[in-house]
């Protein structure tokens, strides 16, 4: 479509409204040059274009907005809330961690013992002491009534009871103690013993441990604890024939054929064998028996370190729990 005298007004209006392309604009301008009488018409239409006045809106500052200031909850409130949340979460975590640690934390000494036994350390003197303390603590409740039963005291087993301030296995102790010392000394010298364990497998024995004389005084468990730690068998026989210290469970477990071994020694009393204690407990379980041939009683205790073998405990960092059982059998009919 081209411009002509019939439609020029529409083209002129589109021209001043800048709605035409370059080619059409050129066409309009050429048309006007060819028709000068219409140039005035185009000029009149151009005058209808309204130029914008220099008006300024004087309240622009009131229209400006700040994202932060217009928040329903200003950003600083969110920051405070986040900080409080972090603090509360941290406190709760620490509190729960503390509780869990207390619940799962085994006696640290027990775990040390497990490690030492697993590593076959020969020098558990420090750990031995701590274990003794732990064992004492663990066994206190259990053994609390043991002396009060009167059985051991009446049966004259003073060797088991260490007087406060005295050396449990001092040379002037009773014969049972002397035998204990002898047995320990045998353990120290593998050549003189049939113990299949090398000397290095045995941690410090009761006698050695008590050389420091730093363990808290305790009755029967004092020996028992040391026996448990040593893992050795101390079949003892009272020279008087009145009592024996039997330790069936401490027969060294690594040998399969020794697992079923009864540790009851043939006491001088010799009146019947006390019920044999089967040594099918894991290596973490120890026991000690005291046979009173005079009164025909067998007393003792069992200790078991629960929650698996020591190596697992070390690997998994499992916590241990010591379970101690005290018993006394009356063999009288």
């Amino acid at each position, binding site marked *: 479509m081209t411009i002509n005298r019939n439609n020029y007004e*529409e083209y002129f209006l589109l021209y001043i409204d800048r709605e035409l392309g370059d080619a059409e604009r050129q066409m309009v301008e050429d048309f006007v040059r060819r028709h000068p009488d219409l140039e005035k018409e185009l000029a009149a239409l151009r005058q209808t274009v309204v*130029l*914008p*006045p220099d008006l300024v809106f004087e309240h622009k500052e009131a229209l400006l907005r700040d994202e932060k200031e217009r928040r329903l909850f200003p950003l600083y409130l969110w920051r405070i809330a986040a900080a409080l949340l972090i603090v509360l979460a941290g406190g709760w975590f620490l509190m729960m961690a503390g509780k869990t640690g207390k619940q799962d934390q085994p006696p640290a000494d027990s775990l040390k013992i497990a490690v030492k036994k697993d590593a076959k350390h020969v020098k558990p003197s420090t750990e031995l002491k701590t274990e003794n303390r732990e064992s004492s603590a663990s066994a206190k409740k259990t053994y609390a009534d043991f002396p009060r039963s009167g059985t051991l005291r009446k049966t004259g087993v003073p060797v088991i009871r260490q007087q406060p301030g005295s050396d449990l296995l001092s040379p002037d102790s009773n014969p049972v103690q002397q035998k204990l010392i002898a047995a320990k000394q045998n353990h120290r010298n593998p050549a003189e013993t049939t113990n299949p364990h090398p000397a290095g497998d045995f941690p410090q024995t009761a006698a050695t441990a008590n050389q420091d004389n730093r363990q808290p005084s305790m009755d029967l468990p004092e020996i028992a604890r040391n026996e448990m730690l040593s893992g050795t068998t101390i079949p003892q026989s009272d020279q008087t024939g009145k009592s024996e210290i039997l330790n069936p469970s401490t027969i060294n477990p690594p040998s399969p054929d020794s697992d079923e071994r009864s540790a009851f020694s043939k006491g001088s009393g010799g009146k019947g064998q006390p019920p044999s204690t089967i040594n099918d407990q894991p290596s973490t379980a120890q026991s000690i028996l005291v046979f009173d041939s005079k009164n025909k009683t067998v007393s003792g205790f069992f200790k078991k370190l629960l929650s698996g073998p020591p190596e697992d405990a070390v690997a998994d960092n499992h916590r241990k729990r010591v379970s101690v059982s005290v018993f006394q059998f009356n063999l009288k009919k």
Partner: protein
Amino acid sequence: MTAEDYNDCVKQYADGLYRFMLKSTRHVEDARDLVQSAFEKLWEHRGDVNALKGKSYLFTIAYHKMIDQNRKSRRMEFREILPESAAESRPAPHLRKVLEEALDRLNERQRSLVLLKDYEGYSYEEIGGITGLNESQVKVTLHRARVQLKQYLVSVENVL
């Protein structure tokens, strides 16, 4: 549209919108209120408005608010005369003054379309988007307004 985009719209389009509203309503307070109302609307819906469409959004809102306001109050008949100094900051030439008079003689739609076209340079299509008219209606309305203005100018020149 972010707050920064919004503030850019304020800086770039507030003056033009105010001119458009002032020339359309010929009332300073009404024009100011309409501008503020349009920007308030833009701020409320800034999340839904493309930053590139801010200007047309403002003019659309302002235009329709002005139409609604005029329909309700019909104050166009009783509006105060726009002060000369407020209408233009510089002395207007004679032709310019006559053109203003001619513009006042247009109806509301014609005037708005002329202002949108001449002040803001919108195309027919864009004016149609703002006013809700189709492109042909914009074109026809604008042409009629131009012819009317021209006739007024010619008549005044003939008198002078």
